[in-house]
C-alpha cells in the first residue's frame, strides 16, 4: 500500500503498530492455509481452523489478534537522526491506549508495570544506517511465549553442521507447545554471541516466500523444515503434521575458535509491519529482509 505524504512520522509508526497487531502478514496466512490443506490430524486441523478464524475476526474488528501484544521491536534503516527514537516512543505510548495494546513492560527486579509499554531501555530499537535516501521502519511484536524459548549455544567448531542442526531441532522440540506452534524458526549461525541472537530474531522479519540468496542456506532451511515437521509435535504441541511454517537462517562470519548458534522462535502470530518513507510517499508492507 502506498500513501502520499505529508503523513507525520509518528502517525506512520502508529499505523505500523496497528497493522502489525490486527492483520497477519499475507505470507504467514498462506502458509497456514497450505498447512490446513495437508494436515491429517483432526486435533491439529481444529487448532489451525481456530487460528485462521481468529485472524479473520481480528482484521474485521480491528482488534489485536493476540492478547500478548508483545514487546514491539523496531528496526530503523536508511537515513535518520536521533529524533526518530522519540517518535517511536510516543507512538508506542499512544497505541497502548488507542489500539489498545496490553501494557507489558515491567521493572525486571520489582516487577511493577510501567503501564505504557515504555520504561528503562524501551522502546527496543535497532539502527542500521545506510546511504539510502529513504527511511525504513520495521516493527515486530514479540510475545513472551515465543521469546522465552530463545536459545544460544556456543558450539565447538568440531561439532560442525550436524551439531548445529541437532541444536536447532532439539530447541524447537523442547519448546513444545509453549511458543504457539506452528510458527517460524529464526536461526543465527556465526557472528559473536550477541550478533548471533540478533540475527536469529532479524530472520523472522523476512517473508516466508522470500528465498535466501545463498543456496546452502536454502538447503539447510528446507532440511530443517522437513525434519521438524516430521517430528509430529504439531500445532500447540498437541500432535500433528504442522510444527513450523518456515525456517529462516542467517549467517555471519565468526571467530575461528567459535561456532555460535541461536534460535529465536516466532509464534504463528509473527506480527510484523514495515514502512519505507521517501520524500513523497510511504510504502507499507509486512515483511522485509534486513
Amino acid at each position, binding site marked *: 500500500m502506498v500513501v502520499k505524504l505529508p503523513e507525520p512520522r509518528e502517525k506512520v509508526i502508529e499505523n505500523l503498530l496497528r497493522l502489525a497487531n490486527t492483520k497477519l502478514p499475507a505470507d504467514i496466512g498462506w502458509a497456514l492455509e497450505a498447512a490446513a490443506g495437508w494436515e491429517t490430524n483432526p486435533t491439529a486441523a*481444529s487448532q489451525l481452523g481456530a487460528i485462521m478464524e*481468529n485472524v479473520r475476526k481480528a482484521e474485521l474488528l480491528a*482488534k*489485536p*489478534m493476540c492478547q500478548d501484544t508483545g514487546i514491539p521491536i523496531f528496526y530503523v534503516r536508511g537515513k535518520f537522526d536521533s529524533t526518530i527514537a522519540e517518535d517511536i516512543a510516543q507512538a508506542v505510548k499512544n497505541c497502548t491506549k488507542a489500539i489498545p495494546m496490553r501494557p507489558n513492560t515491567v521493572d525486571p527486579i520489582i516487577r511493577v508495570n510501567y503501564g505504557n509499554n515504555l520504561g528503562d531501555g524501551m522502546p527496543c530499537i535497532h539502527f542500521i544506517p545506510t546511504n539510502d535516501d529513504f527511511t525504513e521502519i520495521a516493527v515486530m511484536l514479540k*510475545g513472551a*511465549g515465543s521469546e522465552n524459548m530463545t536459545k544460544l549455544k556456543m558450539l565447538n567448531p568440531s561439532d560442525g553442521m550436524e551439531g548445529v542442526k541437532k541444536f536447532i531441532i532439539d530447541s524447537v522440540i523442547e519448546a513444545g507447545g509453549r511458543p504457539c506452534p506452528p510458527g517460524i524458526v529464526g536461526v543465527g549461525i556465526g557472528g559473536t554471541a550477541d550478533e548471533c541472537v540478533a540475527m536469529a530474531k532479524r530472520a523472522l522479519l523476512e517473508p516466508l516466500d522470500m528465498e535466501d540468496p545463498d543456496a546452502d542456506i536454502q538447503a539447510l532451511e528446507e532440511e530443517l523444515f522437513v525434519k521438524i515437521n516430521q517430528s509430529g509435535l*504439531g500445532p500447540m504441541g*498437541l500432535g500433528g503434521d504442522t510444527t513450523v511454517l518456515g525456517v529462516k537462517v542467517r549467517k555471519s562470519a565468526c571467530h575461528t575458535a567459535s561456532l555460535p548458534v541461536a534460535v529465536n522462535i516466532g509464534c504463528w502470530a509473527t506480527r510484523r509491519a514495515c514502512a519505507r518513507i521517501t520524500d513523497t510517499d510511504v510504502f507499507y508492507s509486512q515483511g522485509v529482509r534486513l
Partner: protein
Amino acid sequence: MYTGRDEVHIRALEHLDEGKDVPDCLNGAALYHCGPIMKQDDDGKWSVVAAGPTTSARMNALEPRFIREFKIRAIIGKGGMSKEVAEAMKEVGCVYLAATGGVAVSYAEGLSKVTGCDWLDLGMPEALWHFQTSSLGPLVVAIDSEGNSLYETVRQKVAENLSKQ
C-alpha cells in the same frame, strides 16, 4: 472463570502463608491462565478486548500447591503442565483444557461478561479478572483428572519419529 498467572499464584500463596485474605472466588474455581487486554469506559466499566491463553508451564512450580489449597476444578491454558501438576490434578479432580494460543479475539467473545477484578495493582495482565463465560472454545482435554496427558503421548511419538531420522 477467573484469570490467574504468575503474580496471582505468588500472591495467593503468600497470603495463605501470612494468614491474609485471599479472594473467595478462587475456591473450586476454573482457572484461566490468561492475561487479557481490558478496556475501561468513561463510567469505569471494564470490557474484554482480547483474551487468549498464556504459557501454563511458567506456573509449574506453584500450581500443585495452588490446586490443592483452592481445589481448582479446571485449568485452561496452553502448552501443558508438569507431572507434578498432573498429580495434584488427579488428587483434587481437576482437568487441563488446552486453548489455542494466540486465538485472543475468539476467546474474548466467549467471555461474555466481566463480573469483577481483584489485585489490579499487579497490572492488567497479572490481575485476577472474573468472567462469566458462554461457548468458550475450542478447548481440548489435554490432561484429564486421572493424570493422562496428551502432551506425554505426543512427546513419546515425537521421540520415536526423531529417532528414525
